């Protein structure tokens, strides 16, 4: 009898309350992010993509796991590395790609580059600013707005572990605790901040333990396990929604690629990279988990793969067909009242 209950419990637990459909959707998100990242890098290496790339490969468990807990009207404040989190929240892939190619249909209308993708009105995601972690204090403001209006909404901010060395990271954590803001702080600890390893960024063993002295819980989780990340993030989101204040989540993975496309990352020990790629691949691990629980089968996995490839190709075509902005528009949109951002861009890319 007791065994029965715990077996049922175990069955319910592994899936963290997610239905089969949602689990398959989660796999689709993981595969979409992985495939997008790989194809974008290929195009970059072929010289077919302008600008820089900041691969999030190997960290999909973190990105997808945390963002999958958010509702549409919750807000997400990511950095240059976190496109996978934005795609998980539902960012329009076609427009992402238009932005990558500097086109008028990109979210910034060709004004900003690959790592500065965001869609506040459509998707409640912040358009990243390079300076780290500049969006942490801003997330406090969004969370303050939800609290003031008594809305059950949450702001989630992500940054790398290197960014936690910056003063404003600490400011934001402190203020969020003082005002008990509905915010979830995520640190994507991919173990390298450009070329700098953890011990040269902080002298404490973990990032997570820094939360406690500020007055709220911090949790460290294995970023290779998307469901574990999801479980922890969901608790944090629920807590924030219920008025319980902030939580810090440190999700540990490895940055598989260089800091940006130009960086071969020779400073990352080979064995470390191999260990993570072979044994801690969040996408492969989750796929195997779903197969072992018979939530999906090889045929369905193949269809997911075909779908993400098709979506990428459609996005690519859309981006290539989208016009560039016209040079004469370059000074428009500085002030709200000039109307640039309220006007529809014309087919030629200008606003007339």
């Amino acid at each position, binding site marked *: 009898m007791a065994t029965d209950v715990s077996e049922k419990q175990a069955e319910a637990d592994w899936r963290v309350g997610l239905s089969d459909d949602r689990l398959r959707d989660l796999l689709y998100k993981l595969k979409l992010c992985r495939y997008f990242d790989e194809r974008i890098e290929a195009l970059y290496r072929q010289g077919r993509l302008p600008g820089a790339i900041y691969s999030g490969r190997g960290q999909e468990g973190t990105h997808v796991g945390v963002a999958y807990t958010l509702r549409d009207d919750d807000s997400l404040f990511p950095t240059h590395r976190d496109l996978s989190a934005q795609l998980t929240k539902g960012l329009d892939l076609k427009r992402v790609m238009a932005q990558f190619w500097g086109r008028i249909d990109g979210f*910034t209308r060709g004004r900003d580059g690959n790592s500065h993708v965001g869609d506040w009105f459509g998707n409640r995601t912040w358009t990243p600013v390079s300076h780290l972690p500049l969006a942490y204090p801003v997330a406090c*403001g*969004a969370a303050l*707005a939800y609290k003031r209006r008594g809305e059950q909404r949450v702001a989630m901010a992500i940054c790398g572990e290197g960014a936690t060395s910056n003063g404003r990271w600490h400011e934001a954590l*402190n203020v969020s605790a003082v005002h008990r803001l509905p915010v979830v702080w995520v640190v994507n600890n991919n173990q390298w901040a450009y070329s700098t390893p953890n011990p040269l960024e902080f002298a404490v063993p973990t990032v997570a333990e820094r939360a406690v002295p500020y007055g709220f819980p911090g949790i460290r989780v294995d970023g290779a396990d998307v469901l574990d990340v999801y479980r922890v993030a969901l608790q944090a989101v629920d807590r924030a929604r219920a008025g319980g204040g902030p939580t810090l989540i440190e999700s540990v993975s490895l940055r598989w690629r260089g800091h940006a496309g130009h960086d071969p990352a020779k400073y990352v020990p080979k064995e470390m990279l191999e260990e993570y790629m072979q044994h801690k691949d969040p996408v492969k691990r989750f796929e195997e988990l779903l197969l072992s629980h018979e939530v999906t089968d090889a045929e369905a996995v193949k269809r997911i793969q075909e779908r993400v490839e098709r979506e990428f190709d459609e996005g690519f075509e859309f981006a290539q067909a989208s016009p560039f902005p016209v040079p004469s528009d370059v000074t428009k949109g500085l002030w709200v009242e000039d109307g640039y951002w309220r006007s529809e861009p014309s087919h030629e890319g200008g606003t007339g």
Partner: protein
Amino acid sequence: MATAQVESGAAGHGAEPRGKRTEAGEATYLIAIAEALWEEMERDERVYLLGEDIGAYGGAFKVTEGFIERFGPERVMDTPIAEETIVGMAIGSAMEGFRPIAEFQYADFMTSGFDEIVTAAAKYHYRSGVPLPMVLRGPSGGGVRASSFHSSNPEPWFGHAPGLKVICPAFPSDAKGLLKSAVRDDNPCVFLEHKWIYRRIKEVVPEDQAFLVPIGQAKVQREGTDVSIVTYGMMVHLALEAAENLSQKGVSVEVVDLRTVHPLDSGTVLTSVEKTSRALVLYESHRFLGVGRR
């Protein structure tokens, strides 16, 4: 310019700033600013204040004295000493529909929130189309024996960050009308009050709550024909004094008060210079690359 007389009209803690005018209806620059804040908070509940010691204490210069009693601690929000997060919270809450007004204890401390101001707030709308209706107020300028770190004029820095409106009023009426306009503006506005003017200059300020002064319009404060002094802030008062002295020597000076530093009203400046053929640019900040110097 007796400060004490104006303040003695105060109706007491918790009262509307308007009650602090003289019987003749004069308000100091400081009271005019407090009136603007009060009226905008009464008019629009999305407007709120945040900053250090602005609640029970009423702010370092007492601009928000009595506000917390009327509007409560949520709308008169005391923050930790965390300038980047003060600005960040203004940005984030503006994105979510509020109209925040952040007070810096001194304009000097805006450097401690600089990145959020010039990197995040200034550029955000241009890049994303998201309006940021927010005001950053800072008591600026020298002349009050307040040390190297309480006397700065940071307006050229902010003028170099496209996307910020930078306002530097010289008179109580302009301060009130411009601050009300800034609160209603959908762009981030840096509103630099001058602390030398705070309690020294008073005038009859319009009572009408709909009274606004448009941002981006200079004003000729004194007409003349021989030379134009183009200036703003506390230097307007110095220029007016000089103009008065020079008139006794037969020199007719025109004083152009920019009122807004960015966007600059070059039309009014050029019209004046067309008339006088001579211009003197006068400002209090560092001479090199200041407002109007090339």
